[in-house]
Protein backbone atom coordinates (compact mmCIF):
# COMPACT_ATOMS: atom_id res chain seq x y z
CA UNK A 1 0.00 0.00 0.00
CA UNK A 2 1.43 3.33 -0.99
CA UNK A 3 1.58 5.83 1.84
CA UNK A 4 -0.17 9.11 1.15
CA UNK A 5 -2.71 11.49 2.64
CA UNK A 6 -5.33 9.60 0.69
CA UNK A 7 -4.37 6.23 2.12
CA UNK A 8 -4.43 7.77 5.59
CA UNK A 9 -7.98 8.98 5.04
CA UNK A 10 -9.13 5.73 3.52
CA UNK A 11 -7.70 3.71 6.37
CA UNK A 12 -9.12 6.05 8.97
CA UNK A 13 -12.57 5.16 7.65
CA UNK A 14 -11.91 1.49 8.37
CA UNK A 15 -10.52 2.31 11.81
CA UNK A 16 -6.98 1.66 10.62
CA UNK A 17 -7.65 -2.05 10.57
CA UNK A 18 -6.32 -2.60 7.06
CA UNK A 19 -2.81 -1.25 7.15
CA UNK A 20 -0.41 -3.91 5.90
CA UNK A 21 2.82 -4.81 7.64
CA UNK A 22 5.63 -2.37 6.96
CA UNK A 23 7.94 -5.36 6.64
CA UNK A 24 7.61 -9.11 7.03
CA UNK A 25 9.18 -11.10 9.82
CA UNK A 26 10.44 -14.11 7.88
CA UNK A 27 12.33 -17.11 9.20
CA UNK A 28 15.91 -17.11 7.98
CA UNK A 29 16.56 -19.30 4.94
CA UNK A 30 19.52 -21.68 4.83
CA UNK A 31 21.29 -19.70 2.16
CA UNK A 32 21.32 -16.24 0.63
CA UNK A 33 23.28 -14.63 -2.15
CA UNK A 34 24.40 -12.01 0.32
CA UNK A 35 24.06 -11.23 3.99
CA UNK A 36 24.21 -7.86 5.63
CA UNK A 37 25.05 -8.09 9.31
CA UNK A 38 23.56 -5.17 11.19
CA UNK A 39 20.03 -3.84 10.87
CA UNK A 40 20.80 -0.23 11.48
CA UNK A 41 20.25 2.49 8.93
CA UNK A 42 23.49 1.68 7.10
CA UNK A 43 22.77 -2.04 6.90
CA UNK A 44 19.19 -1.60 5.78
CA UNK A 45 20.27 0.98 3.20
CA UNK A 46 22.92 -1.43 1.95
CA UNK A 47 20.32 -4.14 1.47
CA UNK A 48 17.94 -1.73 -0.23
CA UNK A 49 20.52 -0.53 -2.74
CA UNK A 50 21.75 -4.10 -3.34
CA UNK A 51 18.22 -5.00 -4.35
CA UNK A 52 17.34 -1.79 -6.14
CA UNK A 53 20.54 -1.02 -8.03
CA UNK A 54 22.40 -4.31 -8.31
CA UNK A 55 19.62 -6.81 -8.82
CA UNK A 56 20.62 -8.72 -5.68
CA UNK A 57 17.28 -9.54 -4.08
CA UNK A 58 18.20 -12.78 -2.35
CA UNK A 59 19.59 -10.84 0.57
CA UNK A 60 19.01 -10.98 4.30
CA UNK A 61 19.71 -8.36 6.92
CA UNK A 62 20.60 -9.97 10.25
CA UNK A 63 19.88 -7.86 13.31
CA UNK A 64 20.69 -9.09 16.79
CA UNK A 65 18.07 -6.87 18.42
CA UNK A 66 15.52 -4.67 16.70
CA UNK A 67 16.16 -2.67 13.56
CA UNK A 68 17.37 0.84 14.10
CA UNK A 69 18.14 0.11 17.73
CA UNK A 70 21.81 1.00 17.71
CA UNK A 71 23.33 4.32 16.77
CA UNK A 72 20.60 4.94 14.18
CA UNK A 73 18.13 5.51 16.99
CA UNK A 74 20.58 7.21 19.33
CA UNK A 75 22.12 10.07 17.43
CA UNK A 76 21.42 13.75 17.10
CA UNK A 77 20.34 13.32 13.45
CA UNK A 78 22.53 15.99 11.91
CA UNK A 79 22.98 15.68 8.16
CA UNK A 80 25.65 17.73 6.39
CA UNK A 81 28.30 17.25 3.74
CA UNK A 82 30.68 20.15 4.40
CA UNK A 83 33.76 18.02 5.02
CA UNK A 84 37.24 19.33 4.38
CA UNK A 85 38.97 16.60 2.45
CA UNK A 86 37.72 15.85 -1.04
CA UNK A 87 37.45 12.11 -0.42
CA UNK A 88 35.17 12.66 2.56
CA UNK A 89 33.28 15.56 1.06
CA UNK A 90 32.31 13.70 -2.09
CA UNK A 91 31.15 10.67 -0.13
CA UNK A 92 28.99 12.73 2.21
CA UNK A 93 27.73 14.83 -0.67
CA UNK A 94 26.56 11.69 -2.45
CA UNK A 95 24.70 10.90 0.72
CA UNK A 96 23.25 14.41 0.83
CA UNK A 97 21.93 14.03 -2.69
CA UNK A 98 20.26 10.76 -1.74
CA UNK A 99 18.76 12.42 1.34
CA UNK A 100 17.23 15.09 -0.81
CA UNK A 101 14.82 12.65 -2.46
CA UNK A 102 14.77 9.93 0.14
CA UNK A 103 11.21 10.30 1.47
CA UNK A 104 9.81 10.04 -2.04
CA UNK A 105 12.18 7.27 -3.06
CA UNK A 106 11.26 5.16 -0.04
CA UNK A 107 7.64 6.35 0.15
CA UNK A 108 8.29 6.93 3.83
CA UNK A 109 8.59 10.39 5.27
CA UNK A 110 12.02 10.56 6.89
CA UNK A 111 11.38 14.22 7.65
CA UNK A 112 14.63 15.41 6.15
CA UNK A 113 14.61 19.03 7.06
CA UNK A 114 17.18 21.29 5.42
CA UNK A 115 17.27 23.93 8.07
CA UNK A 116 20.97 24.63 7.74
CA UNK A 117 23.97 23.79 9.91
CA UNK A 118 26.28 26.38 11.40
CA UNK A 119 29.76 25.35 12.53
CA UNK A 120 30.93 28.07 14.87
CA UNK A 121 34.43 29.50 15.04
CA UNK A 122 35.71 30.84 18.35
CA UNK A 123 39.37 31.49 17.63
CA UNK A 124 41.33 32.96 14.78
CA UNK A 125 42.54 29.48 13.92
CA UNK A 126 38.95 28.22 13.91
CA UNK A 127 38.18 30.93 11.38
CA UNK A 128 41.16 29.94 9.21
CA UNK A 129 39.93 26.36 9.30
CA UNK A 130 36.43 27.49 8.40
CA UNK A 131 37.72 29.52 5.43
CA UNK A 132 39.74 26.53 4.31
CA UNK A 133 36.83 24.14 4.57
CA UNK A 134 34.32 26.47 2.93
CA UNK A 135 36.74 27.17 0.11
CA UNK A 136 37.22 23.44 -0.43
CA UNK A 137 33.50 22.74 -0.24
CA UNK A 138 32.68 25.28 -2.91
CA UNK A 139 35.32 23.90 -5.27
CA UNK A 140 33.81 20.47 -4.68
CA UNK A 141 30.41 21.81 -5.64
CA UNK A 142 29.05 21.71 -2.10
CA UNK A 143 27.11 24.69 -0.83
CA UNK A 144 28.99 26.50 1.90
CA UNK A 145 29.46 30.01 3.10
CA UNK A 146 31.34 31.91 5.76
CA UNK A 147 29.10 33.83 8.09
CA UNK A 148 30.30 36.73 10.21
CA UNK A 149 29.47 37.23 13.86
CA UNK A 150 27.21 40.12 12.88
CA UNK A 151 25.21 37.96 10.50
CA UNK A 152 25.04 35.22 13.13
CA UNK A 153 23.51 37.59 15.61
CA UNK A 154 20.83 38.41 13.08
CA UNK A 155 20.19 34.84 11.94
CA UNK A 156 20.22 33.24 15.40
CA UNK A 157 19.26 35.95 17.87
CA UNK A 158 19.26 33.50 20.79
CA UNK A 159 22.96 32.78 20.28
CA UNK A 160 25.40 34.44 22.66
CA UNK A 161 27.45 36.55 20.27
CA UNK A 162 28.81 38.81 23.00
CA UNK A 163 32.45 39.70 22.33
CA UNK A 164 33.14 39.41 26.04
CA UNK A 165 32.08 35.80 26.45
CA UNK A 166 34.80 33.33 27.37
CA UNK A 167 35.26 32.10 23.82
CA UNK A 168 33.56 34.76 21.71
CA UNK A 169 32.00 33.60 18.50
CA UNK A 170 33.96 35.10 15.64
CA UNK A 171 31.98 33.61 12.79
CA UNK A 172 30.80 30.35 11.37
CA UNK A 173 30.46 28.24 8.31
CA UNK A 174 26.96 27.63 7.07
CA UNK A 175 25.68 24.86 4.88
CA UNK A 176 22.10 25.71 4.04
CA UNK A 177 21.29 22.33 2.50
CA UNK A 178 22.31 20.60 5.70
CA UNK A 179 19.85 19.82 8.43
CA UNK A 180 18.28 17.04 10.42
CA UNK A 181 16.06 14.02 9.81
CA UNK A 182 13.85 11.71 11.83
CA UNK A 183 16.23 8.93 12.77
CA UNK A 184 13.84 6.04 13.40
CA UNK A 185 12.01 6.75 10.17
CA UNK A 186 15.23 6.28 8.23
CA UNK A 187 15.65 2.74 9.50
CA UNK A 188 11.98 1.93 9.06
CA UNK A 189 11.74 3.51 5.65
CA UNK A 190 14.73 1.59 4.32
CA UNK A 191 13.42 -1.59 5.93
CA UNK A 192 10.02 -1.24 4.35
CA UNK A 193 11.44 -0.39 0.94
CA UNK A 194 14.00 -3.23 1.07
CA UNK A 195 11.36 -5.69 2.21
CA UNK A 196 9.19 -4.76 -0.74
CA UNK A 197 12.09 -5.61 -3.05
CA UNK A 198 12.33 -9.06 -1.46
CA UNK A 199 14.98 -8.54 1.18
CA UNK A 200 14.48 -10.63 4.34
CA UNK A 201 14.83 -8.56 7.49
CA UNK A 202 15.55 -10.93 10.33
CA UNK A 203 15.45 -9.46 13.81
CA UNK A 204 16.49 -11.11 17.07
CA UNK A 205 19.16 -12.94 15.11
CA UNK A 206 22.62 -12.49 16.54
CA UNK A 207 25.66 -13.57 14.60
CA UNK A 208 27.81 -15.77 16.80
CA UNK A 209 30.44 -16.87 14.34
CA UNK A 210 31.77 -16.14 10.90
CA UNK A 211 32.60 -19.23 8.89
CA UNK A 212 35.57 -19.20 6.55
CA UNK A 213 36.87 -21.73 4.13
CA UNK A 214 40.50 -20.78 3.80
CA UNK A 215 40.59 -17.24 2.50
CA UNK A 216 36.93 -17.07 1.65
CA UNK A 217 33.73 -16.56 3.57
CA UNK A 218 31.11 -19.28 3.45
CA UNK A 219 28.53 -18.15 5.93
CA UNK A 220 27.69 -17.24 9.46
CA UNK A 221 26.43 -18.93 12.59
CA UNK A 222 23.57 -17.19 14.32
CA UNK A 223 21.31 -17.63 17.30
CA UNK A 224 18.73 -18.75 14.75
CA UNK A 225 20.96 -21.29 13.02
CA UNK A 226 23.66 -21.33 10.39
CA UNK A 227 23.16 -19.30 7.24
CA UNK A 228 25.29 -19.76 4.13
CA UNK A 229 26.40 -16.93 1.90
CA UNK A 230 29.55 -16.19 0.01
CA UNK A 231 29.20 -12.46 0.39
CA UNK A 232 28.81 -10.93 3.79
CA UNK A 233 28.81 -7.23 4.55
CA UNK A 234 29.34 -6.26 8.17
CA UNK A 235 28.02 -2.88 9.24
CA UNK A 236 27.61 -2.98 13.00
CA UNK A 237 29.15 0.31 14.20
CA UNK A 238 30.38 -0.09 17.79
CA UNK A 239 30.59 -3.85 17.51
CA UNK A 240 32.81 -3.90 14.42
CA UNK A 241 35.80 -5.18 16.38
CA UNK A 242 33.74 -7.99 17.89
CA UNK A 243 32.65 -9.19 14.46
CA UNK A 244 36.15 -8.71 13.08
CA UNK A 245 37.61 -10.94 15.74
CA UNK A 246 35.05 -13.62 14.83
CA UNK A 247 36.41 -13.43 11.31
CA UNK A 248 40.00 -13.50 12.55
CA UNK A 249 40.94 -10.03 11.37
CA UNK A 250 42.03 -6.93 13.23
CA UNK A 251 40.66 -3.44 12.78
CA UNK A 252 42.04 -0.05 13.78
CA UNK A 253 38.82 0.69 15.63
CA UNK A 254 38.12 1.77 19.18
CA UNK A 255 34.61 1.71 20.60
CA UNK A 256 33.64 4.61 22.82
CA UNK A 257 30.51 5.78 24.58
CA UNK A 258 28.92 8.86 23.04
CA UNK A 259 26.10 10.60 24.85
CA UNK A 260 23.25 12.83 23.83
CA UNK A 261 20.21 14.27 25.53
CA UNK A 262 17.01 16.13 24.83
CA UNK A 263 15.13 18.81 26.67
CA UNK A 264 11.44 18.86 27.37
CA UNK A 265 9.47 20.01 24.32
CA UNK A 266 9.45 23.75 23.80
CA UNK A 267 7.70 26.06 21.42
CA UNK A 268 9.91 26.83 18.39
CA UNK A 269 13.01 28.66 19.60
CA UNK A 270 15.82 27.42 17.36
CA UNK A 271 15.17 26.79 13.68
CA UNK A 272 18.63 25.67 12.62
CA UNK A 273 21.49 23.45 13.74
CA UNK A 274 24.42 24.92 15.65
CA UNK A 275 27.67 23.05 16.20
CA UNK A 276 30.78 24.15 18.01
CA UNK A 277 34.03 22.28 18.37
CA UNK A 278 35.88 24.69 20.61
CA UNK A 279 32.96 25.05 23.01
CA UNK A 280 32.05 21.46 22.56
CA UNK A 281 28.38 20.93 21.92
CA UNK A 282 25.85 20.77 19.15
CA UNK A 283 22.20 21.56 19.25
CA UNK A 284 19.05 21.64 17.19
CA UNK A 285 15.34 21.59 17.93
CA UNK A 286 13.27 18.65 16.78
CA UNK A 287 9.89 18.96 15.15
CA UNK A 288 8.42 17.82 18.45
CA UNK A 289 10.01 20.80 20.16
CA UNK A 290 12.78 19.04 22.07
CA UNK A 291 16.23 20.56 22.04
CA UNK A 292 18.47 17.76 20.80
CA UNK A 293 22.00 18.06 22.12
CA UNK A 294 25.12 16.06 21.56
CA UNK A 295 27.87 15.70 24.13
CA UNK A 296 31.46 14.61 23.61
CA UNK A 297 32.69 11.05 23.59
CA UNK A 298 34.06 9.47 26.72
CA UNK A 299 37.79 8.93 26.37
CA UNK A 300 37.80 5.29 27.40
CA UNK A 301 36.64 2.25 25.49
CA UNK A 302 33.16 1.13 26.29
CA UNK A 303 30.36 -1.06 25.02
CA UNK A 304 27.77 0.08 27.56
CA UNK A 305 25.19 2.35 26.04
CA UNK A 306 25.79 4.96 28.67
CA UNK A 307 28.50 7.39 29.56
CA UNK A 308 29.97 9.48 32.28
CA UNK A 309 27.91 12.23 33.91
CA UNK A 310 30.73 14.81 33.86
CA UNK A 311 30.56 14.58 30.07
CA UNK A 312 26.94 15.69 30.31
CA UNK A 313 27.90 18.49 32.68
CA UNK A 314 30.45 19.76 30.18
CA UNK A 315 27.95 19.64 27.36
CA UNK A 316 25.44 21.59 29.46
CA UNK A 317 28.07 24.20 30.23
CA UNK A 318 28.88 24.50 26.56
CA UNK A 319 25.24 24.86 25.57
CA UNK A 320 24.67 27.54 28.19
CA UNK A 321 27.77 29.36 26.95
CA UNK A 322 26.28 29.35 23.47
CA UNK A 323 22.65 29.84 24.51
CA UNK A 324 22.36 31.37 27.99
CA UNK A 325 18.57 31.39 27.63
CA UNK A 326 18.47 27.60 27.85
CA UNK A 327 19.74 27.46 31.43
CA UNK A 328 16.23 27.11 32.88
CA UNK A 329 15.17 24.51 30.33
CA UNK A 330 15.15 20.96 31.62
CA UNK A 331 16.77 17.80 30.33
CA UNK A 332 14.19 15.11 29.70
CA UNK A 333 16.24 12.11 28.59
CA UNK A 334 19.88 11.24 28.19
CA UNK A 335 21.31 8.18 26.55
CA UNK A 336 24.45 6.76 25.07
CA UNK A 337 25.54 4.96 21.96
CA UNK A 338 28.70 3.07 21.10
CA UNK A 339 30.70 4.76 18.41
CA UNK A 340 33.43 3.09 16.42
CA UNK A 341 36.28 5.48 15.97
CA UNK A 342 39.06 5.06 13.43
CA UNK A 343 42.44 6.77 13.90
CA UNK A 344 41.71 9.36 11.21
CA UNK A 345 38.06 9.87 12.20
CA UNK A 346 37.02 8.57 8.79
CA UNK A 347 35.09 5.45 7.92
CA UNK A 348 36.40 2.16 6.63
CA UNK A 349 34.28 0.84 3.74
CA UNK A 350 36.43 -1.89 2.48
CA UNK A 351 37.17 -5.34 1.29
CA UNK A 352 39.08 -7.38 3.85
CA UNK A 353 41.76 -10.08 3.73
CA UNK A 354 38.86 -12.57 3.69
CA UNK A 355 37.33 -12.95 0.23
CA UNK A 356 33.67 -12.07 0.20
CA UNK A 357 33.79 -10.36 3.58
CA UNK A 358 33.33 -6.61 3.61
CA UNK A 359 33.42 -4.17 6.48
CA UNK A 360 31.75 -0.83 6.80
CA UNK A 361 32.67 0.84 10.10
CA UNK A 362 34.61 3.62 11.74
CA UNK A 363 31.96 6.29 11.29
CA UNK A 364 32.70 7.57 14.74
CA UNK A 365 30.35 10.29 15.84
CA UNK A 366 29.09 11.17 12.38
CA UNK A 367 27.56 8.11 10.76
CA UNK A 368 23.91 9.07 10.63
CA UNK A 369 24.33 11.68 7.93
CA UNK A 370 26.05 9.13 5.74
CA UNK A 371 23.31 6.51 5.99
CA UNK A 372 22.05 6.49 2.40
CA UNK A 373 25.47 7.17 0.89
CA UNK A 374 27.17 4.56 3.02
CA UNK A 375 24.60 1.97 1.99
CA UNK A 376 24.89 3.01 -1.63
CA UNK A 377 28.68 2.61 -1.87
CA UNK A 378 28.72 -0.46 0.35
CA UNK A 379 26.14 -2.15 -1.85
CA UNK A 380 28.31 -1.34 -4.85
CA UNK A 381 31.36 -2.76 -3.08
CA UNK A 382 29.59 -6.00 -2.17
CA UNK A 383 27.90 -6.45 -5.54
CA UNK A 384 31.03 -5.82 -7.58
CA UNK A 385 33.65 -7.07 -5.12
CA UNK A 386 35.27 -3.76 -5.84
CA UNK A 387 34.91 -0.37 -4.18
CA UNK A 388 33.12 2.46 -5.89
CA UNK A 389 35.24 5.50 -6.77
CA UNK A 390 33.61 7.29 -3.85
CA UNK A 391 34.82 4.81 -1.24
CA UNK A 392 38.11 3.71 -2.80
CA UNK A 393 40.10 5.91 -0.42
CA UNK A 394 38.30 4.49 2.60
CA UNK A 395 39.97 1.11 2.49
CA UNK A 396 41.86 -0.75 5.18
CA UNK A 397 45.10 -0.40 3.22
CA UNK A 398 45.41 3.24 4.12
CA UNK A 399 46.57 2.39 7.61
CA UNK A 400 49.54 0.57 6.13
CA UNK A 401 50.37 3.07 3.42
CA UNK A 402 49.81 6.07 5.63
CA UNK A 403 47.28 7.63 3.24
CA UNK A 404 44.92 8.65 6.02
CA UNK A 405 42.12 11.11 5.42
CA UNK A 406 42.69 13.19 8.45
CA UNK A 407 39.41 14.95 9.11
CA UNK A 408 40.22 15.71 12.72
CA UNK A 409 43.81 16.66 12.02
CA UNK A 410 42.66 20.02 10.75
CA UNK A 411 42.41 21.22 14.31
CA UNK A 412 45.87 20.53 15.62
CA UNK A 413 47.65 22.85 17.99
CA UNK A 414 47.17 26.38 19.17
CA UNK A 415 50.30 28.44 18.83
Amino acid at each position, binding site marked *: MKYSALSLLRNALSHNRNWPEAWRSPKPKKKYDALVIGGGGHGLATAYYLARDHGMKDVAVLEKGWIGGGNTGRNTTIVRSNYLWTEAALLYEKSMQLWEGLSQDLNYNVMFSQRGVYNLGHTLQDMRDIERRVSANRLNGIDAEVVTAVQLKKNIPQLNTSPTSRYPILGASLQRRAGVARHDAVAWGFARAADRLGVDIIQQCEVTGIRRDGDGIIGVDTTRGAIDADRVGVVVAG*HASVLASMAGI*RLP*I*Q*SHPLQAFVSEPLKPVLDTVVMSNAVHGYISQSDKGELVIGAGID*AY*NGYAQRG*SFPTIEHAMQAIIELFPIFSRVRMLRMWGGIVDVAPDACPIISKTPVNGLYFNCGWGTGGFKATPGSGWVFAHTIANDEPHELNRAFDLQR*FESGALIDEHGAAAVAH
Partner: protein
Amino acid sequence: MLLIDCPWCGERAETEFSYGGEAGITRPKDPAALSDAEWADYLFMRNNPKGAHRELWNHSQGCRRWFGIERDTLTYRIAGTFRLHGKDEG
Protein backbone atom coordinates in the same frame (compact mmCIF):
# COMPACT_ATOMS: atom_id res chain seq x y z
CA MET B 1 31.43 8.13 36.77
CA LEU B 2 34.10 5.57 37.44
CA LEU B 3 35.85 5.27 40.76
CA ILE B 4 39.46 4.40 40.05
CA ASP B 5 41.87 3.07 42.62
CA CYS B 6 45.18 4.77 41.95
CA PRO B 7 47.92 2.50 43.30
CA TRP B 8 49.62 5.53 44.85
CA CYS B 9 46.72 7.75 45.94
CA GLY B 10 43.77 5.44 46.48
CA GLU B 11 40.24 5.75 45.15
CA ARG B 12 39.54 8.86 43.15
CA ALA B 13 36.87 10.00 40.71
CA GLU B 14 37.32 9.36 37.03
CA THR B 15 37.65 13.08 36.34
CA GLU B 16 41.11 13.08 37.95
CA PHE B 17 42.42 10.60 35.42
CA SER B 18 43.18 10.41 31.75
CA TYR B 19 42.91 7.33 29.64
CA GLY B 20 45.80 5.80 27.77
CA GLY B 21 44.32 2.98 25.74
CA GLU B 22 45.15 -0.68 25.61
CA ALA B 23 47.94 -1.77 27.94
CA GLY B 24 50.77 -3.97 26.77
CA ILE B 25 51.39 -2.31 23.41
CA THR B 26 55.16 -2.32 23.31
CA ARG B 27 57.09 -0.11 20.97
CA PRO B 28 59.03 -2.33 18.59
CA LYS B 29 62.74 -2.52 19.34
CA ASP B 30 63.80 -1.99 15.75
CA PRO B 31 61.06 -0.19 13.83
CA ALA B 32 63.16 0.03 10.70
CA ALA B 33 63.14 -3.75 10.42
CA LEU B 34 59.36 -3.95 10.33
CA SER B 35 57.18 -4.22 7.26
CA ASP B 36 54.57 -1.52 6.69
CA ALA B 37 51.91 -3.95 7.82
CA GLU B 38 53.75 -4.77 11.03
CA TRP B 39 54.31 -1.11 11.76
CA ALA B 40 50.63 -0.34 11.07
CA ASP B 41 49.68 -3.08 13.48
CA TYR B 42 51.70 -1.40 16.22
CA LEU B 43 50.42 2.06 15.34
CA PHE B 44 46.74 1.49 14.79
CA MET B 45 45.44 -2.02 15.41
CA ARG B 46 43.89 -2.58 18.82
CA ASN B 47 41.96 -5.43 20.36
CA ASN B 48 38.98 -3.36 21.46
CA PRO B 49 37.28 -6.28 23.21
CA LYS B 50 33.77 -6.31 24.57
CA GLY B 51 34.55 -7.53 28.06
CA ALA B 52 37.79 -7.69 30.01
CA HIS B 53 40.26 -5.04 28.89
CA ARG B 54 43.69 -4.26 30.29
CA GLU B 55 44.25 -0.58 29.83
CA LEU B 56 46.44 2.32 30.84
CA TRP B 57 45.34 5.23 32.99
CA ASN B 58 47.21 8.27 34.22
CA HIS B 59 46.37 10.05 37.44
CA SER B 60 46.81 13.30 35.60
CA GLN B 61 45.13 15.55 38.19
CA GLY B 62 46.91 13.80 41.02
CA CYS B 63 50.26 12.05 41.25
CA ARG B 64 50.64 12.03 37.44
CA ARG B 65 51.62 8.37 37.50
CA TRP B 66 50.66 5.85 34.88
CA PHE B 67 49.28 2.49 35.89
CA GLY B 68 47.13 -0.25 34.53
CA ILE B 69 43.66 -1.44 35.29
CA GLU B 70 41.61 -4.34 34.14
CA ARG B 71 38.12 -3.13 33.38
CA ASP B 72 35.12 -4.75 31.76
CA THR B 73 34.14 -2.58 28.81
CA LEU B 74 30.54 -3.69 29.04
CA THR B 75 29.82 -3.47 32.78
CA TYR B 76 32.62 -0.98 33.54
CA ARG B 77 33.46 -3.08 36.56
CA ILE B 78 37.12 -2.81 37.49
CA ALA B 79 38.65 -6.15 38.39
CA GLY B 80 41.91 -4.72 39.60
CA THR B 81 44.65 -2.16 39.31
CA PHE B 82 48.24 -2.93 38.48
CA ARG B 83 51.48 -1.05 38.41
CA LEU B 84 53.45 -1.12 35.22
CA HIS B 85 56.84 -2.83 35.19
CA GLY B 86 58.06 -5.13 37.91
CA LYS B 87 60.51 -2.74 39.51
CA ASP B 88 57.72 -0.45 40.74
CA GLU B 89 56.06 -3.28 42.65
CA GLY B 90 55.50 -2.58 46.31
